[in-house]
């Protein structure tokens, strides 16, 4: 009796719970099972990463947390309440940044605030967050004038301006170069320290997941299941190239490799397999001759 009660209590305190969620898609050849009974409990303020081969449904799961898609079976709950529709309390940041080109930077940042408060107040809030991502100078610039990294920053500011309790990031830095990505990792971590938001971060970059996540979930190839969960017990801030991060990444990569192999076998010929390439040629002999 007592145990049951404490369990119930625990469930309510969970900010986000994904309970036996499955998702079917109707494709040309009939139904395709994209996600198969996924259950994940996420505590408030946790930084969670999903990694998996492409097409494993990690983005679909993120969209269901956002309320942009509905599960075929199972439920996603936020503080015990079922998520059915999108809400500004759970904002998604997309890979393409998805800024609106007909608005300038500051208008993009205040987009979600427009009907909620007057111009002065929302400008003030938007400026605060634009400064937080170090783009205060560019508030009047238009979207097509920004670089990829700047667009990501504006998208982050736009999401933060809504003060969501959950931030959902769908490969937000995948299109950026490594240097810009490193800097944005630092900044998103810094922001996370300050705001204490729950972050769910989807990526196919294993090191990125280890660099940022408290926990990393590895997905199987379709149908998507949780293959393994890794608790990343490393002090922050972490360095993407540090030995411990690379070590964790190697462990996760091993898990992932099998799945990628499965995925590729469906895409390429069946007899194809991942193997170490034979590159053991005596380096001294034809060094540079191939150039």
């Amino acid at each position, binding site marked *: 009796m007592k145990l049951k009660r404490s369990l119930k209590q625990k469930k309510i305190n969970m900010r986000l719970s994904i309970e036996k969620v499955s998702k079917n898609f109707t494709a040309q050849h009939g139904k395709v099972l994209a996600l198969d009974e996924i259950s994940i409990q996420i505590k408030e303020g946790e930084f969670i990463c999903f990694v998996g081969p492409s097409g494993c449904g990690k983005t679909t799961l993120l969209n269901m947390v*956002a*309320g*942009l898609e509905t599960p075929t079976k199972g439920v996603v709950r936020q503080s015990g309440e079922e998520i059915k529709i999108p809400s500004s309390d759970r904002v998604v940041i997309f890979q393409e940044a998805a800024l609106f080109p*007909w608005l300038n930077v500051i208008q993009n940042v205040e*987009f979600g605030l427009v*009907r909620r408060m007057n111009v002065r107040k929302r400008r003030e809030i938007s400026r605060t967050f634009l400064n937080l991502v170090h783009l205060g100078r560019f508030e009047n610039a*238009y979207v097509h004038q920004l670089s990829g990294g700047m667009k990501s920053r504006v998208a982050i500011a736009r999401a933060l301006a*809504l003060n969501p309790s959950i931030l959902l990031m769908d490969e937000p830095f995948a299109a950026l170069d490594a240097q810009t990505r490193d800097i944005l990792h630092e900044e998103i971590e810094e922001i996370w320290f300050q705001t204490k938001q729950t972050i769910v971060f989807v990526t196919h970059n294993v090191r990125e997941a280890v660099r940022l996540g408290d926990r990393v979930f590895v997905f199987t190839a379709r149908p998507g299941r949780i293959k393994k969960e890794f608790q990343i017990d490393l002090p922050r801030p972490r360095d993407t190239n540090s030995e411990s991060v690379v070590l964790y990444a190697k462990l996760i990569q091993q898990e992932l490799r099998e799945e990628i192999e499965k995925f590729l076998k469906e895409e390429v010929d069946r007899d194809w397999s991942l193997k170490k390439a034979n590159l053991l040629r005596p380096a001294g002999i034809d060094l540079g001759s191939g150039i």
Partner: protein
Amino acid sequence: MIWEAVFRLKIWPPYLFPSPEDVAKALIWGFKDRTFLIGMSVSIQRITIGYLISLVLGIGLGFLVGRFKILDETIGSLISGLQVLPSICWLPLAILWFGLNEQAIQFVIIMGAFLSIAIATESGIRNIPPIYLRAARTMGIKGIDLYTRVVFPAALPSIATGMKLGWSFAWRSLMAGELLFVSIGLGHLLQTGRELNDMPQVIAVMVVIVLIGLIFDQLLFSQLEKRLRSRWGMTT
């Protein structure tokens, strides 16, 4: 120059092929005795009314067809089919419906313009990157706000293209309509020129028609389209 040279060769008699000088004179005369000005103002007034109605109808219909799949499947092909029909072909029908009056000519203008505006609006809406809608929805935008603040602005460059196309169709339809029945527009001036065998006037009126077309097309619609496209970050 070539015109003047051909004129001097005297291949055709002057009443069939007037000199540039005669045409210029006719132009000046036309403006001096105000017949051109009256014709222009009548025509421009007509096209303004017809075009504005076409805009409202075209954008409205385009939105509905772009939004509801059932409408697209039912009347979508009808719209693109009717669009092929030169709008002056509506004139006999319009005369039977409305009689030989202002409404008939407005009808012809509208039939010429609004379908192409509708088609452009619809394709603009259909080609909105879905990510814009998802981004807006995740920020809690829904209902009419989603349309006014995301769908409409996202489709605007395409709508502007439709507006430009629609205007040139409307202008052509108006001229054809005015030629075919008595009124006091520019098309009618062409017709009276023919009846009086006044070739300089005919060409002078044609020059005016081309100029008005160019002014609207180049200065207004092309500029609008170009600005929208560059601001939306599209390469033209």
